[in-house]
């Protein structure tokens, strides 16, 4: 179903890879729509093709069958409206924080002064002021992922894709970053408000998202699309939280 505010729509998307042992279907007949303003998480066992699905949405990979529509138009090639946040931050160690954030902007904004302005805006948005000239080696994991996030936000995408952004952080740091991500998501001040995140952490998915799309093991098929109807902020011991955990688990089992 195409709704007016659909950001991305997957229509019967299948992805196969040719491996030495033959052709492997990683994703099969994936159909769903992400609407503007939604926070969606993709959960599933490892090998369910969650990361492949993100790469298809960003245009880094093309589907073997089916179609992807972005804001109502058929998507071919790289999608410049998407930005990605990676599990291992994807920072260049020889560049400073500001230079890492600026990296994705260079092809889009030719004026270096304007580029600096954008860089500073997003550095401040994620709480990295003061770290501009630090190198990744000088940063904690939490600060490194803030750089990854600032770099993605700086291209002012209409869709933010995140591939397990908290899974290489310690427990406390990830609590802090999840809360700050929600602050950014709900901030209506010209920041992207449609987010799709891959996670293997079910509680994290329930805490953050409006919808959880559950994928089965290889080939990945959608086995559940669950709306999380709980007020935010959400805590594990809230009424209803555990019921959602059980529901997602039962679909994965």
């Amino acid at each position: 179903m195409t709704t007016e505010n659909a950001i991305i729509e997957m229509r019967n998307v299948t992805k196969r890879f040719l491996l030495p042992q033959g052709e492997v279907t990683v994703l099969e007949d994936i159909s769903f729509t992400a609407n503007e303003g939604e926070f969606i998480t993709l959960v599933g066992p490892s090998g369910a093709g969650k990361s492949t699905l993100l790469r298809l949405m960003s245009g880094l990979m093309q589907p073997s069958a089916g179609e992807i529509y972005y804001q109502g138009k058929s998507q071919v090639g790289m999608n410049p409206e998407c930005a990605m946040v990676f599990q291992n931050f994807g920072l260049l160690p020889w560049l400073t924080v500001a230079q890492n954030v600026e990296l994705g902007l260079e092809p889009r904004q030719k004026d270096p002064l304007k580029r600096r302005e954008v860089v500073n805006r997003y550095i401040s948005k994620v709480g990295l002021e003061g770290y501009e000239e630090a190198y990744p080696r000088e940063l904690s994991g939490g600060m490194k992922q803030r750089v990854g996030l600032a770099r993605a936000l700086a291209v002012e995408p209409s869709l933010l894709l995140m591939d397990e952004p908290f899974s290489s952080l310690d427990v406390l740091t990830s609590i802090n970053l999840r809360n700050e991500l929600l602050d950014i998501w709900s901030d209506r001040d010209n920041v992207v408000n449609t987010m799709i995140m891959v996670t293997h952490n079910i509680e994290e998915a329930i805490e953050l998202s409006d919808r959880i799309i559950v994928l089965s093991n290889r080939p990945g098929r959608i086995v559940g699309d669950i709306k999380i109807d709980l007020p935010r902020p959400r805590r594990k011991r809230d009424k209803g939280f555990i019921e959602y955990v059980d529901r997602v688990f039962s679909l994965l089992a």
Partner: protein
Amino acid sequence: MDSSSSEGDKRPQQSLPEIGISQILGLVELLLGKGGREDIYKLAGELSMELGETLTVIRAAEMLGLVHTPGGDVVVEDFGVKVIDATIAERKDLIREKLEQLPVFKSVRDFLKREEDAEVTREEVLEKLAELLPNEDAETSFSTVVSWGRYAELFGYNDDSQTFYLDV
């Protein structure tokens, strides 16, 4: 709790735990989700962290005035609630005010102010830290001073030139 005093300073100097600001904020957020109070031993178990490691994070949060630790519990202070309720940008200002009161940060900042025209090098700050916290590993204290100081924009540090400067 290990602390040491330096000559000419009445207040004992607290060692600086090597803990990032994100972890400290995460701890306070976690505690607030539990109504603001938790048993330390239970908390360590729940976080699957070593008790010693948990205590180090708690001590860091306590230094910043975010929590206090009556008995075996850790309790969020009003200031902790204020910091978490603040925006990402406001948090820096609040933490900055606290850091300015901590003897180590105060000394480093005073040192930078005195040397305003000269460049203050990494070596000089390391020496200063060794003097202030004689029982601690100066390199460890150094990395915490740099990371908390940067977060609060108390001073800047450039690792290429290995020099400190005051933010204008």
